């Protein structure tokens, strides 16, 4: 085996892919997508406050006044949705009154009107009429205010003091803190799970994409008939390892770009700018040690799946044929997805430890565990050692199939033939 040949092949694979527009579109689309579905709406939703003028017609004669008296602030901060209520008594001709209110909404003199029916206190239903009924945030806030008003009236009618009941039934707030070597940090409970989830899927997507790319690359070399020219100068093992190394580096480049985007977005300053967090509370952040582990787990995961993809690509003549068998490799990539929720719930359980030490699951499940809670060093090292051993065996088997397969054209090989290729010595 000549390292310089592997390097030449890897360089070609890397440069060809990194220079293509497809790589950059594929790489930048995820950060742009995440940015557009999380950051921007949060930015607009949290920074912009709305003010709505509503006409309230109250047939009960109680709710509207209670509603107008509701404080429009939460935890001492002004609410993002502010309402101006114009109370109007119900007219004699209800149909004409409703039509007149609709006209005012259409003319833009008011934003919406509320109709509180006679039985609103028992049925719990209130009508809301507006040009747009998709203002989710302000409608939620309005619903909360009406609910609170109705509850206060009901409590008073039952002989209770609403303020006292409010005090006595106050929720308990669980203050979550992540314990780590750097000291305790206040962290939003769901954020830890989301953090693990995002990293898990980032790795899942890159492994699936670049494994497929290996298979496609091998098939293209076969179908363009360039393979025989190459193997006359490069040994099939060198070609396979060069190809895997080159594409692995492309995938790693993409993974690092995504990790960097994620790391930047989770910086305390950025988080504070895009989301309102209670004082002293942070979101999980990527430490350099974590990045190093994730990059290494990516390389391990890539080599596990891509060696199989390379052998599959070499064995078949078209993408359609190869895809049928590639499904088996994908199954092993998908199983961790089903195990994920149980591991998120208890990342240090025996189940989580055992599953994350099975080599074919280690890259994805160890990534998840590291993101949730740094496992003991011995578990990480054992996971790495077992996976490297497994990769060594996989490379040995797949290189043998690859060596024969790349020069075979024509019919689809049977499993007996693949077995024969594996044992074939020259």
């Amino acid at each position, binding site marked *: 085996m000549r390292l310089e040949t592997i390097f030449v092949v890897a360089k070609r694979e890397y440069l060809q892919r990194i220079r293509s527009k497809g790589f950059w579109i594929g790489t930048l689309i995820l950060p742009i997508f995440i940015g557009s579905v999380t950051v921007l709406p949060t930015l607009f939703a949290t920074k912009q406050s709305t003010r709505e003028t509503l006409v309230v017609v109250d047939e009960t004669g109680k709710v509207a006044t209670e509603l107008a008296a509701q404080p429009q602030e939460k935890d001492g901060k002004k609410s993002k949705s502010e309402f101006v209520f114009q109370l109007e008594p119900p007219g004699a001709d209800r149909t004409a009154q409703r039509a007149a209110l609709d006209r005012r909404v259409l003319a833009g003199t008011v934003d919406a009107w509320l109709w509180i029916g006679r039985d609103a206190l028992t049925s719990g239903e209130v009508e809301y009429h507006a040009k747009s009924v998709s203002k989710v945030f302000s409608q939620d806030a309005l619903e909360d205010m009406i609910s609170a008003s109705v509850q206060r009236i009901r409590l008073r009618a039952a002989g209770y003091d609403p303020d006292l009941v409010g005090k006595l039934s106050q929720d308990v707030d669980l203050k979550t803190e992540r314990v780590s070597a750097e000291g305790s940090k206040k962290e939003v409970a769901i954020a830890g799970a989301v953090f693990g989830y995002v990293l898990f899927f980032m790795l899942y997507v890159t492994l699936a994409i670049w494994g497929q790319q290996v298979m496609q690359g091998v098939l293209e*070399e076969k179908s363009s*008939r360039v393979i025989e*020219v190459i193997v*006359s100068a490069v040994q099939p093992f060198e070609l396979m390892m060069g190809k895997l190394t080159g594409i692995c580096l492309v995938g790693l480049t993409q993974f690092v770009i995504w990790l960097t985007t994620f790391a930047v977005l989770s910086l305390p300053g950025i988080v504070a700018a895009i989301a309102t967090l209670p004082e002293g509370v942070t979101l999980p952040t990527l430490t350099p040690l974590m990045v190093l582990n994730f990059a290494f787990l990516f390389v391990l995961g890539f080599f596990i799946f891509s060696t199989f993809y390379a052998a599959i690509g070499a064995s078949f003549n078209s993408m359609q044929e190869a895809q049928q068998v590639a499904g088996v490799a994908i199954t092993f990539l998908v199983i961790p997805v089903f195990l994920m929720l149980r591991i998120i719930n208890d990342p240090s359980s025996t189940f989580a430890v055992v599953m994350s030490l099975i080599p074919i699951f280690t890259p994805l499940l160890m990534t998840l565990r590291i993101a949730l809670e740094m496992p003991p060093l011995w578990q990480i090292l054992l996971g790495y050692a077992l996976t490297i051993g497994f990769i060594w065996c996989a490379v040995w088997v797949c290189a043998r199939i690859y060596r024969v397969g790349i020069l075979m054209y024509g019919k689809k090989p049977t499993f007996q033939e693949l077995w024969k290729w594996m044992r074939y*010595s020259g």
Partner: protein
Amino acid sequence: MTTNLELRDVRKSYSGLVAVDGVSLAVPEGSIFGLLGPNGSGKTSTIRMIMDITAPDSGEIRLFGQPRRREDLRRVGYLPEERGLYPKMTVMDQLVFLGEIRGLKRRELVPEIVRWLERVQLGGRGASKVEELSKGNQQKVQLIGTVLHKPDLLILDEPFSGLDPLNQELFRELLVEYREQGKSVILSTHGMELAERLCDSICLISKGRAILTGELRAIKRQLGGNSYRLVGDKDIEESLERLRALPEIEQAVVQDGVAKLLLRPEADGADLLRRIVGFVRVHEFRSVEPELEQIFLKAVRDAA
């Protein structure tokens, strides 16, 4: 005689099917060697073993006077029958890559590639993607990729298939140039006419066996005396069936109004002429050197 390549009793079988059955041959320095045989005769299998793409079951392969080592293959240029290029790569990147996998450096490759592209009238196309070139031009790029590292032995498997006459001439010039430089060329083909024009030595392979090996001139001399040229006064094709029915004749073909006859080894030319004058008015009847195609057909038939 110094040989660049020598095969000694090389065998190869796939799943019990014998592809190469004890082939021995020697390719001298400064010669063009024809590896000839019908499709599926074992030529490509033989070449793949020479190139270490597959390993022989038994026998020995010697390159440049010693048992073949992997690094010696860097002195060999190989153009396989199943050939292709990376369609999305530029011509320059492609050729640099083909040079680099043979241990050359980019800085020494680039001026050489530019020179070659000029020579094959592809100057200025270095930045074009391979898929943008015509098929003929792609074949020129492939040829450059084969000779770029200045190999001492060139192995070309069916190099002329799909080439127009202009490109065929370009390939032919190159082979002759190689021979003049004291290098060797192995030409695997089933096109006899071209092989006859170019080859110094041949090895005829049929069903995996080398059925005729040696210097082409010597082979022709050896088989000479049994080959005749016949010119009649009317369209000789009309008499072809009668000629073929004669007991002395093993093979008879007509080309451009001239019949080429190959006699059975025991047949006598004078006896044959006496029979022919019975139905053809003969203008010319003379012993000639047999053509390679005749030798090929006869040898394959004899081997069967």
